[in-house]
C-alpha cells in the first residue's frame, strides 16, 4: 500500500513520538483492515495482534459514532488498571495506536498522539 520510503517516514514519525513523549511505551500504525504498517516501542509488546485489534476497535467506534450521528470518531481511549491505550484515525485508511503504562499520562499521551497523527496525515494522504 505504501512505498518503503513512506513507511520509513512513518516509522520516523513514531520514533519522534516516543522521543517527544517519555510516557509513550509503544506506538503503531495499522491499516483500517488490520494490517501492521509500522511500529516503534521501548518494551517488548506483541504489537501485530494489537494492530488488528486496533482496527476492530476503531471500526466499532466509527459505527457507534455514526449510529448516534455524532460526526467522525476522533479517538478511542482505553483506560486500564495498568495503563492507557489510545486509538485514532490518521486518515480514512490508517489508524494510530499508542500506549503508556503510566496511569497519569493520559493528557500527554493524547496530546502527543494527536500531533503525531496530524503530522503523519500529510505523508499518507
Amino acid at each position, binding site marked *: 500500500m505504501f512505498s518503503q520510503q513512506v513507511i520509513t517516514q512513518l516509522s520516523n514519525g513514531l520514533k519522534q513520538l516516543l522521543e517527544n513523549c517519555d510516557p509513550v511505551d509503544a506506538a503503531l500504525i495499522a491499516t483500517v483492515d488490520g*494490517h501492521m504498517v509500522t511500529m516503534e516501542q521501548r518494551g517488548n509488546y506483541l504489537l501485530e495482534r494489537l494492530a488488528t485489534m486496533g482496527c476492530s476497535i476503531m471500526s466499532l467506534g466509527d459505527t457507534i459514532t455514526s449510529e448516534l450521528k455524532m460526526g467522525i470518531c476522533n479517538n478511542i481511549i482505553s483506560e486500564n488498571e495498568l495503563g492507557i491505550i489510545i486509538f485514532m484515525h490518521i486518515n480514512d485508511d490508517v489508524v494510530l495506536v499508542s500506549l503508556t503504562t503510566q496511569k497519569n499520562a493520559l493528557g500527554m499521551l493524547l496530546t502527543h498522539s494527536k500531533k503525531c497523527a496530524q503530522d503523519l496525515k500529510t505523508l499518507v494522504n
Partner: protein
Amino acid sequence: MKEIKLVFTGSMGAGKTTAISAISEIPVINTDVRTIGEDAQYKKTTTAAMDYGELTLDDGNKLRLYGTPGQERFQYMWPIIIKGALGLIILVDDANSHPLKDLALFINYFRDHINKIPTVVGITRRDLEQGPNIQEYHDYLHKEGLKLPIFSIDARQRDNIILMIQALTAMVEFN
C-alpha cells in the same frame, strides 16, 4: 417470546454480511472497512469487528443475528461473538480456491460449540460451479464425525437464508 442468538461465521467473502442484510428487519449494524492490503483484489470492504441484525419469526421468537469477521487475523473476535449463541451457521464460499479447507478451519475452531449447539453449513456461490460437489462436503463432515445439515444457498436471496434459519431454529427448539 424467546430471544435466540445465532452466529454467522465463515471465510472472507462467504456472504455473512450479505446473508444477515438479506433477512434483518432492522438496518444492519456493520463494521465494514475498506480493504487495503492483498484482500482488496477479492473484496472492496470487509468486516473488522462484527455484524448485527434482527429478525422476528412468525411464532414471535426474535432472532439476534451476529456475524463474525472472516479473516483469521480477526480470530480474537470469534470467541467474543460466539458467547451465548444458541445456533451457528458456517458459510463456505464454494468459488474460493480451497472451500473444504475453509470449512475445516471453522469446524476445527468452533468444534466445542458445534458439539453443544445446533449448527448448519451454508454453501454459497454454487452457481459458479467451481467447487466440490455437495457430497464432498458431506464426506468431509462424515470423516469428522459430524452430521450437519448442508444448504446450497445464495446469500443475497432472503428465501434461501430464511429456509436455513428455520431449519436451525427448529434444531434449537429441540436441543
